[in-house]
């Protein structure tokens, strides 16, 4: 057993546990995006960042990939950590402003501005789908391609493969959820991400009395005022 201090509380956990698991065991909430139980930790989104050590030697590490150490002093919500998290969310929001998951995170952590150019990409490269495909579905149909700016996720040669069973696991775990977002057909939508887009009735006046799936409807509230 290893003893460490999280936010001033001593905790004993088994060797090999990650800081994230230890903090959640104590009930300290740490937001995550690329982490999912049952998949190997990846440390891509950096949202689970925590501060370890003390004084000027304090370091920021991603708690989902950092194993516990004897006598480690961890702070999960220091000013430095919160500032870093807000910046990470703001950056992710600029890549995928249409994602409900990221919007919810932004609202939860008080990100009220976007200083970066919005790119409306359909992927934040969190790697959840790649790990889901490999580890839970045992398929390995999709993976990372390229590097740097041109890094993307997809099948080899961008063609359908026999390896893919079309289980939909990749779409189910996707925090950006572009593939399932069915904008015009809200009843088919699963992620609810379309609720964050501009509703069709705002753009098209003739749909004034259309059946609205949003309760309460943001657009109607605006037009009433």
């Amino acid at each position, binding site marked *: 057993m290893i003893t460490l201090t999280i936010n001033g509380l001593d905790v004993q956990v088994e060797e090999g546990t990650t800081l994230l698991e230890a903090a959640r065991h104590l009930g300290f909430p740490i937001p995550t995006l690329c982490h999912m139980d049952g998949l190997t930790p990846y440390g891509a989104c950096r949202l689970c960042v925590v501060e370890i050590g003390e004084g000027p030697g304090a370091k920021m590490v991603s708690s989902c990939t950092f194993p516990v150490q004897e006598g480690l002093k961890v702070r999960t919500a220091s000013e430095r950590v919160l500032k870093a998290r807000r910046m990470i969310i703001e950056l992710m929001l600029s890549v995928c402003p249409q994602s409900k998951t990221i919007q919810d995170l932004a609202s939860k952590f008080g990100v009220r501005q976007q200083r970066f150019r919005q790119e409306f990409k359909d992927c934040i490269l969190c790697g959840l789908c790649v790990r889901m495909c490999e580890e839970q579905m045992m398929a*390995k*149909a*999709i*993976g*990372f*391609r*390229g*590097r740097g700016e041109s890094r993307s996720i997809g*099948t*080899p*040669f961008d063609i359908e*493969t026999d*390896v893919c069973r079309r289980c939909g696991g990749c779409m189910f775990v996707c925090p950006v959820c572009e593939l399932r977002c069915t904008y015009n057909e809200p009843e088919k939508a699963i992620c609810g991400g379309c609720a964050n887009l501009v509703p069709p009735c705002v753009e098209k006046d003739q749909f004034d009395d259309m059946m609205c799936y949003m309760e309460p409807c943001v657009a109607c509230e605006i037009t009433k005022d």
Partner: protein
Amino acid sequence: MNPDIVRDILDKHSQEGNGLISILEDIQARFSYLPEEALKMVAEAKNIPLVDIYGVATFYKAFSLVPRGKHLICACLGTACHVREGPIIVKEFESQLGIKAGETTPDKEFTLETVACLGACALGPIVVVDGHYFSNVGQTEVRGIIEKAAEGFETADLEQDYHIFPVEASCPKCNHSLMDPSRIIDDYPSIRVTASFGRNHGWLTISSMYGSYKVFSEYEIPKETVVHFFCPHCHAELKGATNCVLCGAPMIPMIVSGGGMIQICSRKGCKNHMLDLSGVNL
């Protein structure tokens, strides 16, 4: 794409654990790109998911998934070359070749690529064509570089290159001279043998200049073909015990007058050759 070539490459690397990068490098060297079928064969043989191989192939810039041209022009756009007007050189190449950086001309002759840094910043702007470096390239030199590349750098410059010398070869079996004074290549009598591949059987003459790669033959030999060589006098096959270290084809031994052996690779297009002077009293 010839699947046998990929199979040969896979056999060559079967002893190493994974060796994916070496395999991909060999395939790239042979085809000048990574064909889709070849990657599928590698995936099957090595039991690696295709998506992983594709990830590696797209990660490294040295690998290409589209066929490259015969000549590869690499223009440096590193910081130093950039401030020394590297982008102008690239633009000039683009307009002269009619392609954008990263593309290949429709006749599959030239591929133009940019590179981040070649590590010789003081010589910038640098252009590398088929492994030959050009430094301090000016806009006006671009046309000359393209013409030189199209001509080929391999044509030996006999007057200036002191590493090139003529050899006199004879058959290792019957010791009869293989020199043919009636056919002059590079101003010297050529070496004449009988070459056989497939159903074709005819003469083949090689430049006797050690370092020149000029070859003429009665029948057009397709690239990558392994040719059987025979002595035109005793008709014995010229076949050595060793294989080419580059492509695995048998090496062809010939005796050099004055002692020693010369060995050339029997694969058309492979330029491997060596002069073995062991046991010679100079």
